[in-house]
């Protein structure tokens, strides 16, 4: 399963990069993507359950608009703090726990934290412990945490 | 339009070079080199459009990958003390 999926993705990428659709190039593309998929399909996917993954991707897409909005807010915040003459920053380290189980969930939360206002992930452990560097004191993370936990969907799957 | 944007991005690279040279720590330098890599990708895309030859994007794509790999290789060295 993961083998076929990897091969399809690789071939799509080949088509994207080449832009030529002659017979010989398409054939070599198929051969190359099959070889790559044979060697690396375990790296890219491992064992996956297609239904859960599709569910997660749908929820991830629903999460995106909110994330984009937060990114814009974060950048306006950074621009303000950078260009203000006296530089209003007061950094601190925060530690907190989450209930995230999967690596993907942890990676999404870590990147989201880095991209949203005032915070950068410093350490994200596999058991869901996070260390975050915040540029101002007293940032609340629970809203985003709940959103990412919903994407992962431990309760309803 | 693209020329002006290219010049602005190149000036931004020039600013970051200051941090690469000054440091003071090695992490600051890696951070700055990583930032330069991102700006270079943007610059390459802009140059491709300046010449109206968007095939240059392939190089930009390779750059984005290489930049990431170099940073990760460095971090691996810092964490393990060796690469292999």
């Amino acid at each position, binding site marked *: 399963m993961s083998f076929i999926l990897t091969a399809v993705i690789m071939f799509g990428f080949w088509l994207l990069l080449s832009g030529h659709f002659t017979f010989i190039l398409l054939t070599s593309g198929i051969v190359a993507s099959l070889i790559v998929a044979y060697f690396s399909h375990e790296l890219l996917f491992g064992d996956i359950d297609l239904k859960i993954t599709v569910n997660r991707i749908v929820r991830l897409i629903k999460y995106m608009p909110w994330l984009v909005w937060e990114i814009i807010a974060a950048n306006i915040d950074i621009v303000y703090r950078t260009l203000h003459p006296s530089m209003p920053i007061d950094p601190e380290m925060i530690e907190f726990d989450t209930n995230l189980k999967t690596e993907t969930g942890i990676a999404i939360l870590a990147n989201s934290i880095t991209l949203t206002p005032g915070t950068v992930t410093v350490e994200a452990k596999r058991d869901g412990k996070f260390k975050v560097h915040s540029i101002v004191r007293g940032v609340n993370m629970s809203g985003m945490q709940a959103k990412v936990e919903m994407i992962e969907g431990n309760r309803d799957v | 339009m693209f*020329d002006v944007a*290219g*010049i602005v991005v*190149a*000036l931004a*690279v*020039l600013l970051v*070079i200051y941090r*690469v*040279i000054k*440091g003071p720590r*090695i992490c600051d*330098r*890696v951070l*700055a*080199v990583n930032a*330069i*890599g991102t700006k*270079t990708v943007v*610059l*390459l895309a802009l*140059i*491709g459009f300046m*010449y109206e030859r968007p*095939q*240059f994007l392939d*190089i930009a794509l*390779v*750059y984005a990958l*290489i*930049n990431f*790999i*170099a940073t990760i*290789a*460095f971090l691996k*060295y810092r964490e393990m*003390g*060796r*690469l*292999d």
Partner: protein
Amino acid sequence: MALDLILLIIIVICAFAAVQMRDLLSAALVLGACSLIMAVIWTRLNAVDVAFTEASVGAGITTVLMIAALSRTRRGEEGGEERDMGWVHDGAANKRFIFRHIAMLIVVLVTMGVLIYGTMDMPDFGDPDAPAHTHVARRYIEKSREETGVKNFVTAVLVSYRGYDTLGETTVIFTAGIAVVLLLRKQRR
């Protein structure tokens, strides 16, 4: 034009900083940044293949190789402190120091003069009547598309007209790579 100027300034600053740095790891990183910018300049000159090579070899592999080499040796430069100071409280030594630097300056200036004198006979940049452009270049430009089927004629020259040359170069590089791998593997045991 302004873009090229800024890029050149960045290159010079990077190269100077890389030579000046005492910390070798930082110097390797600055060189990586330098070749990133160099590849942008190659792209500006429309030399896409060279830019590709510069990006993957200069910025990617070289940096990783240098870090790998540093991980097996030491990070600092030997005798860094003494060379940094230069001045010692000793009249004769100071005189020798000044003399050595003036001699170096003269050698560098003479070399620069000779090189500039050498460029005076060269045709202008992009001159269509330059010898390099009148001999075979016209044929490459006009015919390479139909003769080889390659879009970019630098690529056509590299991998088609001079294909055996490139094959030889690639063989040399491949052999060197295998030799390096074998050597490193032996050391690990």
